[in-house]
């Protein structure tokens, strides 16, 4: 049986009885609604940041509130407030049902998942309760580690962010599904300076685990940030034009997130606005590619016991041996498309409507040794770290910007090149993948995905891959 603590915590905090929730949900569905839900949230966050070798800033914040949602076909009504009381909930319910009162279409059956929530991130003590002095001590050590890595490291910025989110979803069938979600995050940015050249390097990581686990990995993150900054001091201008590109394992999986992941979200496909609309069963990648979205990996940043609609997360195969197999769904879009729920209904907070969103998205490992993949390229680019990316899901054009990349010359890794943006076409780029390594890695836990103004934590992963032709946006034509 799932621990009832989150449910009890929130209802006590807001002094609400379960019967009060039934009353509000009754008001919400009193018209011709298909479904309604209440989403309660309480979020404590703690940050500490280091600059000039010491922690000069710390913040603590509380955000709490509730939203009432009514679904009626393709319509959604929503009202939220950070003051929680039965009166306010009743007003919100009447506001949200406005859209159902004016519907002209027939009812749509919205399915409710009956699976049990996972237990992917149990922690003995919520990391948000870690004494700030411990955060400060860790950050101070990282400053020392980064500066010790190389004397050209001139400045180190490091910060820790910890949150503890408790959510509760109530539905008209009387179900109460709660989740308690710890999340820790650390990032380190170094500036290196030599002979008038300045460069920056960043690294970080985290997940849904205890602070001690973050502390155990942190020094490695600091060394990585310093190494990247110092490496980039020698960077030469990047080439421009279409060429063979090898992506290193792990975080370069952002390629999948941008090139195919967003285009496979149910809302865009229900509306026919994605370049992947109506392509299920067709080839969208080379047969070497199998891509999954998996919200059930223990302790990962992108994982969830249940999504923000109360549906347990799952592993969903998006592309299998190059063939498009599935979309990512929330309740509304699954119902309208007549497809199963996948546990991808996510929202940034109680101030936002759920949407289909990714969790941890990655490509399964192939057969080849990564060294052999690099050796197979006569001239090209080897990109191992990226800053960020984005996509136009309608035209399929996506970009992602390298923060660490190297020339490949005659099968060997050469000089580092300055950050270049890679641009491609979603349905096309994965068909050009000609080699897939056996070295699948998930990223260290730094991804944040933005969609329609909402940010949610996600993960990505990739083995080393070779892409035969993608446009590299450097300056050397």
């Amino acid at each position, binding site marked *: 049986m799932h621990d009832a603590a989150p449910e009890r915590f929130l209802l006590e905090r807001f002094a609400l009885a379960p019967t009060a929730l039934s009353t509000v949900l009754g008001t919400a569905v009193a018209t011709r609604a298909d479904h309604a839900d209440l989403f309660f949230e309480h979020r404590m966050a703690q940050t500490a940041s280091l600059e000039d070798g010491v922690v000069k800033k710390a913040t603590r914040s509380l955000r709490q509130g509730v939203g009432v949602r009514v679904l009626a076909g393709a319509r959604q009504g929503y009202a939220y407030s950070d003051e929680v009381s039965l009166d306010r909930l009743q007003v919100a319910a009447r506001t949200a049902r406005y859209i159902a009162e004016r519907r002209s279409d027939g009812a749509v059956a919205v399915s409710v998942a009956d699976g049990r929530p996972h237990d992917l991130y149990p922690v003995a003590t919520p990391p948000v309760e870690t004494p700030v002095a411990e955060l400060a001590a860790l950050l101070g050590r990282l400053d020392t580690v980064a500066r010790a890595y190389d004397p050209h490291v001139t400045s180190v910025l490091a910060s820790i962010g910890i949150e503890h989110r408790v959510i509760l979803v109530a539905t008209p069938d009387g179900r109460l599904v709660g989740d308690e979600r710890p999340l820790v995050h650390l990032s380190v940015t170094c500036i290196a300076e030599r002979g008038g050249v300045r460069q920056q390097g960043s690294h970080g990581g985290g997940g849904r685990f205890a602070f001690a686990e973050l502390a155990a990995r942190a020094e490695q993150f600091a060394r990585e940030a310093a190494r990247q900054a110092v490496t980039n001091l020698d960077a030469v201008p990047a080439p421009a034009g279409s060429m063979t590109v090898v992506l290193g394992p792990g975080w370069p999986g952002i390629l999948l997130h941008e090139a195919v992941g967003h285009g496979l979200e149910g809302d865009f496909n229900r509306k026919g606005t994605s370049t992947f609309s109506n392509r299920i069963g067709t080839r969208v990648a080379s047969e070497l590619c199998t891509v999954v979205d998996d919200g059930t990996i223990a302790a990962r940043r992108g994982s969830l016991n249940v999504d923000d609609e109360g549906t347990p997360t799952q592993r969903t195969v998006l592309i299998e041996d190059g063939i498009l197999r599935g979309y990512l769904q929330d309740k509304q879009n699954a119902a309208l498309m007549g497809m199963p729920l996948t546990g991808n209904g996510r929202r940034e907070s109680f101030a936002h*409507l759920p949407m289909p969103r990714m969790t941890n998205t990655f490509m399964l490992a192939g057969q080849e040794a990564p060294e052999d993949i690099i050796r197979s390229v006569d001239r090209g680019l080897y990109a191992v770290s990226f800053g960020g990316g984005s996509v136009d899901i309608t035209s399929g054009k996506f970009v992602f910007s390298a923060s660490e990349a190297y020339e490949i010359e005659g099968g060997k890794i050469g000089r580092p090149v300055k950050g270049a943006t890679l641009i491609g076409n979603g349905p096309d780029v994965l068909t050009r993948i000609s080699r897939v390594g056996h070295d699948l890695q998930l990223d260290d836990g730094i991804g944040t995905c933005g969609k329609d103004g909402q940010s949610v934590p996600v993960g990505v992963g990739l083995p080393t891959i070779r892409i035969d032709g993608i446009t590299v946006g450097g300056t050397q034509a």
Partner: protein
Amino acid sequence: MTDLREIAQDLVARARRAGADAADAVLGDSDGLEVGIRLGEVEKLKRSREQRAGLRVFVGSATAIASSGDLTAAGLDALVTDAIALARVTAPDPHGGLPDQADVATAIPALDLYDAAVETMEPAPAFERCRAAEDAARAASPEITNSEGAEFGCGGGRVALATSHGFVGGYASSSFGLSAVPIATRDGQMQRDYWYSSSRTLDGLEPADAIGREAARRTLRRLGGRPVPTGEYPIVFEPEIAASLLRHLAGAIAGSALYRRASFLLDSLGETIAAPGVTVVDDPLRPGGLASRPFDGEGVASARRTIVEDGVLRSYFLDSYSARRLGLRTTGHAARSAGDAPGVSPTNLYLEAGPHTPEAIVGSVAKGLYVTELIGFGVNTVTGDYSRGAAGLWIENGELTHPVEEITIAGNLRDMLRGISMIGSDLRFRTATASPTLKIERMTVAGT
């Protein structure tokens, strides 16, 4: 309704009693309405209500911040306790503290930032505006085959700031916005683009049908987009896109980037950083401006300021902390949210209009690119290196020809600012950051 200024003053007083040597408090609340229409049908209605309190305390010269949405007496007590406890752990910082008394605003100018229409806005007329915008877009051409819909949003709120050295101020502001996102199809290729209007007042919004028609025009002109050969070409930025260069400039001359030596424009005051004719102004006092504010996030008086004058850098963007780090005086650009220390941001930032019509600028290009969209994050403020995904129209012999996509444009911001060779006469204040059409003499286009 409770006066937020009183709550802010009360929080500061409580913090002082609890042991803070100095403190300031920010209070804010807001109500919002957001509606959407898609393919003529109601799609979304959202109403919001938010409130927030943020307290910054100094114990000695060490600082910390606590923020909360719980404005009950118990919630405010917790804020004070949390902030003081944290400030006993953080390290002292001789540059910290409230702004110098001499910089603090003594008068709060009225800037026409609030339209009471926001209080009575009902869903029905909001849906009607969306419908009008989307209908106009869909009627523009049979090639408009689908739509992401049209959205209307409005919000009104109040903000108040009080400091332990006696400043207290507050103001109300509102915002209204309308946008449309049509989708066009030709030969199996889909394209989308959008257009929007935003304003402090309801009547300040552009007509809904005009927004829809412009959204359709922008979408239709992308049909048939293709890459062009890799090479070096002149680049013309349409106004919306040119404004993004000002945002990169602002990031590089923000105090925090400068004292961290994380900018390609270190030690550049008084230096020529842009082409002759480039004059950039920041004006927080423009009546009704989308980023106007009577005082900054620390209570420092706002003033219009020339940032770049005829290519020469005249001012950084500073708050009191970064100013002290650099041995300068704050420029009143502290931006503040309840939950964080002040950062630095520009207000209404614009590049002054030049002598050339946009047609003359395009007409001057024998072979080059007219950029209508940039995507991705390929801008490095530390080095100035710039590489972003782009879409637009190809210019051949001074005429816009076929649409272009799946290309990047790359260069270095230092060269790009100095390479601005023509400035358009078409400056309009549609957004907080505004620019006329700009031509940059040479950048690398990566395509086929």
